[in-house]
């Protein structure tokens, strides 16, 4: 009777914590795939670069440079900020776009940065960029995952349970990271 009681609660908790966690499981899973391949792409942003030419700018006055750049680049709004990294370059900053002009040649590098919608937010949550309260929510989620992993072992009994086919799958699943690490650390 006691054994039945324990298993029943195990199933109930596994089910309901599973329902509760499903959104975060999906978020962390998708973000994990995206961040895993960070060497091949930027999982957070789409960045583009383009070079256009305008007339060389001889002036060194800030207001003249800004006005000339705006006129030649057909920009209608004033930039958020302006900067001169070196004597030959002037930069105009707009939200998501930077215009860097090489004053003597008039070559302008236009760099645009755009967030990858949804994926950016998923990645930020995954890497705990917000800190603060999210740290504790993520901790709770991590504990939930551990619980679901362990409770999942005891959902079924018999030939499909842990003592049956389950033990083989658990063994292979445990050996996989263990063997990989031994190979990576000592044999590679």
């Amino acid at each position: 009777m006691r054994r039945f009681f324990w298993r029943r609660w195990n199933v109930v908790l596994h089910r309901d914590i599973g329902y509760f966690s499903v959104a975060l499981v999906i978020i962390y899973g998708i973000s994990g795939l995206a961040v895993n391949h960070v060497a091949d792409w930027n999982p957070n942003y789409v960045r583009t670069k383009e070079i256009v030419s305008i007339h060389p700018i001889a002036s060194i006055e800030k207001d003249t440079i800004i006005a000339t750049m705006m006129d030649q680049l057909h920009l209608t709004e004033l930039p958020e900020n302006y900067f001169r990294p070196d004597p030959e370059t002037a930069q105009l900053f707009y939200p998501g776009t930077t215009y860097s002009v090489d004053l003597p040649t008039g070559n302008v590098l236009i760099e645009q940065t755009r967030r990858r919608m949804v994926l950016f937010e998923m990645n930020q949550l995954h890497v705990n960029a917000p800190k603060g309260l999210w740290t504790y929510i993520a901790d709770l989620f991590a504990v939930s995952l551990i619980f679901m992993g362990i409770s999942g072992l005891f959902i079924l009994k018999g030939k499909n349970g842990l003592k049956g086919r389950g033990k083989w799958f658990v063994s292979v699943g445990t050996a996989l990271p263990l063997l990989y690490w031994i190979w990576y650390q000592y044999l590679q």
Partner: protein
Amino acid sequence: MKKTLFITLFTMMITLIAVSGGKKNYGKDVTLKETTKISAIIAEPEKFNGQRVKVEGPIVDVCKTRGCWIKIGGDKEFESVRFKVEDGVIVFPLEIKGKSVVAEGIVSVKKYSVEEQIKSGKEHAEKEGTEFDPASIKEPKIVLQINGEGAQVGDK
């Protein structure tokens, strides 16, 4: 009941998005009252070495790989300072480039001898598969940065 719950959640989300604009804090609060000019730090780095300072200016560059530093433009032309934060502790998003920042941290000044620069240059070239000419290093180099603790990023 279900409809009320859905409307409440939706309203909360919209409210959160609406109030999320304006200034945004990264890391600890900025507490110093007095602002130090970046040009003053660059002019006399040794004087400020180890000191806590508050600086402000436009964000002219952001670390593209980890968001672990920003470059803050100085009050004088052609001057900027790197504001470096601990990896993962603060992550600066790329889109803050061009916005204005008020930032606080400890000034760090490190001197690198010619030998040290040649050694690290060789290592870097080997790692990146690029060429490096040791003869290009002629004198010791001083690297100045602010080890960042907190920043407030917003519009001008």
